[in-house]
């Protein structure tokens, strides 16, 4: 267990491969790349590998996306799958002629047999007349899905961003690292009421046209602190686009972010108006939940980007965060949490199933924020969960949603009934 002791300054050792057999919750680079790129609906997504990878990659964030597979068979494993990939690309383009660009995902099998996919992609690019990008994300690459996130962003950066110029509006921004489609909509509406135009959202709301002109903006707003940061830094380096780290996860963070964006564009007055309006709309409703949440214990286990913001959110709700886990957090993430947390928190990097059971039995949080896979285990221990992918939790109304859903998770009658003995 790579947990750290509860000293104020310490954080767990991280960015290390997980030990085999410990039942890790991490996934592979392919999963990470799919996670990033799946919402790009005007693209053809071809998975070069056995059919299972494609089947699994259909479902991303609870939405089914169309996927194409080369379906490598035994014969191709022996003789190579180059022919098959070339034919597949050709046929996929016939079946989906409107597609503007093609992503080809590498998988474990195709990487080990050593198909020269780059060469085929280049060749077919000329033949089909649309950009074909190799997403080199075999499952064994890197330590977790974070590797895939980075690979996907590199593909977008190196192949698409900066291809075409456009007239930059005075208040144009990109949002980087927002993948939830519902949340994207909320943030866009908040910003548009301030007079700011969101050009491209990576990748919750992006299209080919907007990606290739994504460098023609005044500012990048980073929401995902890990890969998003890398993306924004590269854009600053190459195209001189400055960036601003923002978060819309809680009331204070939303207000703070809107003010900073307002200040950057000289729209302070508009920002204040939006904040006032939004805050008034939720204020009365919010207060009925707050007493119930006070002093309750929460635990968080997510990817990496949102954990620090969530800790802040819970502290704003007067709740105690007892546990923070991350599948692929880095030292910066953990240091952030340590610095901002008022009390000592158990921080665990890459918790295994055993660590999670430990958490449920010993720390006994009242609510646990995690993915669907950990959710079922958590319920077995009589603890309520919240699925961050289900709802929209950003901005002001989103904060109300969050508070309401946390309240639901804690006070669902089922947990009390589960604890009661049968007469």
């Amino acid at each position, binding site marked *: 267990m790579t947990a750290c002791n509860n000293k104020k300054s310490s954080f767990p050792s991280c960015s290390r491969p997980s030990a085999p057999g410990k039942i*890790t919750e991490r996934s592979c680079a392919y999963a990470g790349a799919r996670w990033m790129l799946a919402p790009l609906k005007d693209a053809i997504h071809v998975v070069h590998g056995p059919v299972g990878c494609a089947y699994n990659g259909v479902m991303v964030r609870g939405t089914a996306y169309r996927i194409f597979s080369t379906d490598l068979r035994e014969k191709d494993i022996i003789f190579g799958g180059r022919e098959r990939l070339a034919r597949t690309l050709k046929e996929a383009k016939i079946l989906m002629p409107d597609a503007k660009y093609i992503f080809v995902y590498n998988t*474990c099998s195709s990487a080990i047999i050593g198909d020269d996919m780059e060469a085929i992609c280049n060749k077919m690019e000329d033949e089909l007349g649309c950009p074909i990008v190799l997403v080199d994300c075999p499952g064994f690459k890197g330590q977790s899905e974070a590797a895939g996130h980075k690979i996907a962003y590199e593909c977008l950066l190196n192949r698409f961003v900066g291809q075409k110029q456009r007239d930059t509006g005075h208040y144009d921004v990109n949002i980087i690292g927002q993948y939830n489609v519902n949340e994207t909509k909320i943030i866009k509406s908040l910003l548009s009421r301030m007079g700011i135009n969101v050009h491209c959202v990576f990748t919750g709301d992006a299209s080919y046209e907007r990606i290739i002109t994504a460098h023609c903006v005044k500012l990048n707003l980073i929401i995902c602190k890990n890969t998003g940061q890398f993306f924004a830094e590269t854009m600053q380096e190459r195209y001189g686009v400055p960036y601003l780290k923002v978060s819309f996860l809680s009331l204070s963070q939303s207000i703070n972010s809107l003010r900073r964006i307002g200040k950057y564009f000289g729209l302070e007055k508009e920002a204040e108006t939006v904040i006032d309006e939004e805050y008034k709309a939720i204020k009365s409703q919010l207060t009925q939940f707050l007493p119930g949440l006070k002093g309750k214990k929460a635990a968080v286990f997510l990817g990496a980007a949102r954990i620090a913001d969530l800790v802040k959110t819970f502290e704003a709700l007067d709740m105690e965060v007892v546990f923070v886990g991350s599948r692929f957090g880095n030292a910066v993430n953990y240091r952030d949490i340590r610095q901002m947390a008022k009390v000592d928190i158990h921080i665990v990097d890459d918790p295994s199933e055993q660590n999670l059971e430990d958490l449920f*039995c010993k720390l006994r949080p009242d609510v646990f924020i995690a993915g669907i896979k950990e959710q079922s285990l958590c319920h077995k221990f*009589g603890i309520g969960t919240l699925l961050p992918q289900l709802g929209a939790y950003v901005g002001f109304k*989103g904060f109300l949603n969050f508070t309401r859903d946390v309240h639901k998770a804690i006070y669902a009658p089922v947990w009390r009934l589960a604890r009661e003995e049968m007469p």
Partner: protein
Amino acid sequence: MPAQLKLNGRLTIEDLNALTEMPVEGITYDQMYIEKEPICPEYKEPDQDIIPSSKRTVVVDPGRICMPFGAMWASVGIHKCIPFVQGAQGCTTYPRYTFSRIFREPVSIATASFHEDTAVFGGRKNFIEGIRNLIIRYHPEVIAIITVCSSEIIGDDMEGYLDESIDELEEEFGPEITDEVKFAIIHTPSFTGSHVEGYNRAAAAFLKALAKRSTPEPKVNIIPGMITPGDIREIKHILRLMDIESTILFDISETLDCPLRLPQTMPYYPKGGTRINDIVNMGNSLATFALCPDAGGAGAKYLEKRFKVPAMIGPMPMGIYNTDFFIKNLAERTGKPVAEEIKDERGILIDAMADTFHYTMGRRVAIYGDPDIAAAVTRFVCELGMEPAIVGSGTESKQFVEEVWAAAHEYDYKPILLNGGDMFEWEDYIKKEKIDLILSNSKAANISKEAKVPLVRIGFPVYDRVGCQRRATVGYRGSEYLLDLIVNTLLESKFPDDRLQQ
């Protein structure tokens, strides 16, 4: 005063009722942008030359997963068994997501965490370390070692690694440590077959590793195949009525549908699952019933070849004909009479069919699923007087073709048969043929919406409705439930409300 403000004290019923009503709006779910738009904006007829899967290389929206998934499904049906997947992390995490989605249950699957170094130097180090970690942290009783494409291509010698691993463990912790744990190696290279074949191989592998012949016992073996926990409970119910002792190999009814009872112990293991001793005893039974020929048939055949236990393979007991066949065979093999209650259950199903044939007769249905389930459903819809217009199986199977043709000939239908085709091909036929009802899994939800044909969810996987894993669709009672689903869906979509009040 809102109920939530005085929660430190004990809640009254009124408080609880008040709690379930959440007056606060926030953003309601119907305001959210839920992506339910059709896959393509409008139907453009694609190039007809490459619609049939046989004429193209590309697979669009595959209807089958790779073999390791089936092997994992099988392994979690064994008591205190943890599958150990010799592959990259995604090979376990994706199936765990899938299990969580379908069954809403936690499933522990360990991985060898392949990284770049493993791809170059082989998986020996990861395997030995992984098995050690798994045993000393989780104390499983069985470890199912499952290979995937990467380890098979690299050429990991699993048998050799296992011997080495056991030696090292015994040296470190003493010989007792490996007494308590059994191993089964299941070779499932992902580039052949499908999840159905993976289940099949798991059945054979477990029986090869564990089954023995000693003194014959008057009981039967059941290899259920990839059916739901509810289905297995229904099979148990039938066996109980017939007063037959049985061993169910891969009994997921109590591992993938478990009660929530506090306090929970650590590490978390479901109470149920097939016990090791029962698997060892499977060589002594009167007969083996493999309910799904493609998923589990290999296990039955092994027992027949090795221990002379007669194999009764398929078809899946759904509908009148197939269930009759199953129960007749059960009675014959065990010498027990068919129980009166079972005859009554059959009568109730027949009665339900008699009451509803007005609605079902002549309806054209499209079916897609795993081969055994699709074949059984095809026969059942024929029995209901419905026409199976398009029948597809994600996995290629000879048995499937035979069973579907047998049913189609008997009832004089000529269905379009897609053996091993993908969902894209099937979807295209749905748009061209006039279809009244789709019987398929959740993967067809989008297709159903786009083609505006109602969908009855059955088979693997169903993740967008709750409770499907608890309901049986096999046996007379299960078929009755399926009949109700079919008729109610038709009533909802094909008949105006004022025609329904008889």
